[in-house]
């Protein structure tokens, strides 16, 4: 019940915004004869391209946002967009919705397929200028169609979210639409990459579609995500909080971990999304993409010989290592501002996409805690699902001690990271840059014992002699070794015992 109420509130807000004065679609300038079919098609097409009309387009621009179609224009290669369902209209006849001024060809979402750097992608872009981008049954149906197509063909789905919520006039029809989308989000999960870019409001039940996708990106200052808005929060918990504080890009990229990255504005976000897309395979049937690479795979990285301080207690920046080994120093970091004691993201090695996971000694000594375990685990599972090799840089003092962590369930959350790595069958290459957990084992008085232990185990030999590590390498050769190993491991096959699905400790 609570959820329904939430959706209604959001939808009511949408209606207030969406149903204001403004030109509806143009009526045919009927002369003596009724317009021909081609004329009507052309008429509808023109109307569809105008969305909610020039007034609302201007209002959208005034908010610092682009329209649904402008966004698609920037996201996709020029002239590559093939639109679906441009003529679909909502089917609601209650509350005067069947009047012609309330009908917009295409309704409140633009859907279709196109190319990003030549590669296929399916896209839906919610149109805030039509009923505040609210989700009608028809709107949901359009989204479901592109998702179904994407799953069948095997190509990613990109959602550009800008919606006030459910279409209140449609009631359960709209809510059922969400259910249909959620189901497809889940069915597509692990089949094709799903990316959500939040470019406006996304509240109530609607938030769960992005939450079910692989990546959620946000636009700073103009997008927000929350279950209930500040008004409801105030009436229920008496908390005073702004939209931005509650569900803005900063909140979700630094505090909640709901969003994976935030961008400055619509254009910045869409251009970055294009670049991000190039790292991803089209589906779980495809290998990680290999791009043309100008950076020599056998490039030595002399600075790695000195980057790790000789004192084991001194911090260094794991990003320095990642940048120095990656092709052209490029690293698309995922969740750069959240749980910063672990670094995850995409890079290329000799052109091939890899997922990189690294402890970050610069932040909380690179220890593992609840948030960093969950962050790392989800990233590892994405890479494994989509055939992206994993490169892990280890320098970890261990799991973070303390009541906050134990009470918060570090045992079960930490288990996620172990589970994800163990379950992954993609090529996995691990580079231990410094240390394991000696400092944690011995604390305080037993200095002599610690010294002995350190002497025995805080060097690579015990592990190397027992075959736990494959080799001890000169740091400057790291890139060369990884590139070489990736070539060899490209043909790796590894299967798990049959199961319906594993039971990761959630």
């Amino acid at each position: 019940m609570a959820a329904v109420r939430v959706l209604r509130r959001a939808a009511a807000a949408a209606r207030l915004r969406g149903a204001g004065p403004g030109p509806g679609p143009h009526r045919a300038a009927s002369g003596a004869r009724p317009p021909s079919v081609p004329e009507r098609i052309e008429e509808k097409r023109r109307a569809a391209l105008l969305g909610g009309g020039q007034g609302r387009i201007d209002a959208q621009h005034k908010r610092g946002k682009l329209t649904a179609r402008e966004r698609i224009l920037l996201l996709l290669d020029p002239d590559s967009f093939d639109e679906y369902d441009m003529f679909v209209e909502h089917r609601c006849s209650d509350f005067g919705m069947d009047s012609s001024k309330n009908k917009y060809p295409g309704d409140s979402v633009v859907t279709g397929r196109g190319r990003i750097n030549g590669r296929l992608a399916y896209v839906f872009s919610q149109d805030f200028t039509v009923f505040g981008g609210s989700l009608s049954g028809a709107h949901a149906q359009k989204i479901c169609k592109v998702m179904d197509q994407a799953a069948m063909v095997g190509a990613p789905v990109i959602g550009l979210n800008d919606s006030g919520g459910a279409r209140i006039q449609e009631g359960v029809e709209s809510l059922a639409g969400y259910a249909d989308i959620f189901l497809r989000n889940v069915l597509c999960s692990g089949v094709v990459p799903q990316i959500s870019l939040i470019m406006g409001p996304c509240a109530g039940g609607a938030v769960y579609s992005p939450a079910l996708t692989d990546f959620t990106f946000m636009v700073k200052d103009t997008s927000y995500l929350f279950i209930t808005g500040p008004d409801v929060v105030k009436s229920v918990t008496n908390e005073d909080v702004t939209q931005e504080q509650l569900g803005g890009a900063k909140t979700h990229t630094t505090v909640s971990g709901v969003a994976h990255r935030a961008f400055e504005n619509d254009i910045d976000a869409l251009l970055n999304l294009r670049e991000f897309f190039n790292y991803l395979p089209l589906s779980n049937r495809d290998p990680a993409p290999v791009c043309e690479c100008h950076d020599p795979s056998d490039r030595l990285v002399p600075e790695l010989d000195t980057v790790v301080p000789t004192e084991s207690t001194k911090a260094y920046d794991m990003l320095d290592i990642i940048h120095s080994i990656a092709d052209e120093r490029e690293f698309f970091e995922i969740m750069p501002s959240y749980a910063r004691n672990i670094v995850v993201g995409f890079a290329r090695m000799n052109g091939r996409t890899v997922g990189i996971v690294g402890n970050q000694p610069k932040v909380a000594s690179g220890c593992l805690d609840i948030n960093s375990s969950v962050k790392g685990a989800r990233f590892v599972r994405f890479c494994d699902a989509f055939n992206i090799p994993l490169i892990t840089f280890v320098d970890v003092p261990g799991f973070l001690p303390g009541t906050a962590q134990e009470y918060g369930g570090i045992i079960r959350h930490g288990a996620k990271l172990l589970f994800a790595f163990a379950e992954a069958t993609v090529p996995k290459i691990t580079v231990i840059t410094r240390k394991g957990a000696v400092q944690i084992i011995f604390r305080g008085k037993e200095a002599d014992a610690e010294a002995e232990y350190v002497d025995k185990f805080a060097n690579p030999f015990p592990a190397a002699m027992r075959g736990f590590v494959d080799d001890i390498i000169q740091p400057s050769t790291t890139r060369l070794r990884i590139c070489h190993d990736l070539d060899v491991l490209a043909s790796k096959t590894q299967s798990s015992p049959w199961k319906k699905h594993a039971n990761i400790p959630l």
Partner: protein
Amino acid sequence: HGVQLQGGAGLVQLGKHASAGYWSFTLRTLEKHVSEGRKACGFFYLSSFVSLQTFEKLLIANRGEIACRVIAIHSDVDANAVHVKMADEAVCVGPAPTSKSYLNMDAIMEVIKKTRAQAVHPGYGFLSENKEFARRLASEGVTFIGPDTHAIQAMGDKIESKLLAKNAKVNTIPGFDGVVKDADEAVRIAREIGYPVMIKASAGGGGKGMRIAWDDEETREGFRFSSQEAASSFGDDRLLIEKFIDNPRHIEIQVCGDKHGNALWLNERECSIQRRNQKVVEEAPSTFLDPETRRAMGEQAVALAKAVKYSSAGTVEFLVDSSKNFYFLEMNTRLQVEHPVTECITGLDLVQEMIRVAKGYPLRHKQADIPINGWAVECRVYAEDPYKSFGLPSIGKLSQYQEPLHVPSVRVDSGIQQGSDISIYYDPMISKLITYGSNRAEALKRMEEALDNYVIRGVAHNISLLREVIIHPRFVQGDISTKFLPEIYPDGFKGHNLTDLERRELLATAASLYVAEQLRSQQFLGTQRIPVAKSKRSTWELSVRLGDGIYPVAVSKDGSSFSVEVDGMKLNVTSEWNLASPLLSVTIDGTQRTIQRLSRNASGDTSIQFLGTVYKLQILTKVAAELSKYMPEKAAEDTSSILRSPMPGAVVAVSVKPGDTVSEGQEICVIEAMKMQNSMTAAKTGKVKAVHCKAGDTVGEGDLLVELE
């Protein structure tokens, strides 16, 4: 290879590094270094030491470039430095602050005993002109590679050196007076001399701790800053005040004396290009001196050296006015930073001479043997931001570093490598870049090329300033003085000023790079389950933002080159378009340029180093640029009510507390970085809201120091 063998020990000149003035203590021959060095610059001769007696173990009590081939001592933060790796033995003498390491005489004496070094080369700075150090070495029977204690003392004392100079019939500066006890005395002396006066450290040469005062207030301020800097750089806070000569040239004579009463002058170095009284560009010879003046200066310099029985390499500094009157400034009793230019034109190896002389050998040359062969120019490449007061220190890790050694006739003396840290504790010099040629124009042309081919990433650097200086018409004509920088850039250095043609070249290059990148991002290797749609596009309509201007640029692909239309003009841009290479050779309508693309991102932002200066551009498709107008303006932080640290450093003093009222320009705190103290002042009058730092804190660039209401 100049290898000497005696008792199994070899003293080797290390080619490139040797020519840079590095000497290594070594117990084995290091021929690979020699051959490396020979490749790098072949114009130094390595004279044979065969069967001569030498030191078996030599300690270099220094760091960085000057220490590079030595048994260098080092501080904690230098543990991974190049000079430590190059040495056969390296000894840590303490934590990062110089007062606890490279200036820590007790620790260094301890090292000498432990390593049984027979001689010490002090490099420059630190203890190089410390008579106490020389005295302690003498008492331990260790040879100090430098002049004897008496000469250091005589020349280190500005009063005595002046008297000695007068007695030796060397022209001296009027208004010379005494050592200063406190600020009041400083003012009294300054008034006696008459303003302007120059205040500087007695103990140190160069520009360290040197300030110019035009009135009493500035004298007091100068006294305070200079004495603190002197203390931190030289461990000696004595100061000196003397008449400041307006518009002078700084020209110095290299001398070399032995223990047998011989002394030579090795021609001059022109060091007039300075910022904040520190040298930036040096050359040898000077365009300004005629043979008579040169000889007169040289002879006076030698007279002074002989007067103090000077037995090492040293430098006699003169100020030269526009009528070629020259005045003795001071004598530096050590190897100078800029000694390579002298080595280039004379063919002498000064470090080698220093060591020979220290061992007691007589000079091998006669005055008539000292030539001026060609021309040499040295640029001091600093890790600093030249846009702030011609250079405020920058720190960081050298994420990429590549010296322009592929350019002919280039010598680079450096003590760092890719991955090195530039820390707040030491001088921010990255390297000395030296080019030479048969004449000045040739040397300068090579310098231009060398600067363009120098890859320094991760820290700010002053390549832009250096390049602007060496191409400036006044510099090219030799019309310079120590006031060159403030005169040429009265409002501060702003980078290269693009001509219309250069701007078009930059826009065309940036746009071509963008398109090359776009084209590459459509290249996927291997077979694709869903074929990649081939773009039929051959023309790109772009919009490039550069500074305040937005320029429409159209790019058409034409085979491997691009035809770019800017401002209604067509330019042809060709390159290999290797997008991973730090250096990019681009030919624009037949003009070859070496550019560096420092960064790019998906948002179209790119920064390109072009003609030495880094330009920030944003390249968008025409469509995206048109839609940009709808993007919200992000409010910028009000910077007048907050004070952020302009550089990384240590807080020396905080002069305000919350609730204080400060007036515009009032000092709020003092930040020391790279041995320089910088006074941070209020940008407006107001009440202090919060203070976020305290004395002793280490702060990073951009850290919030103080907030005003």
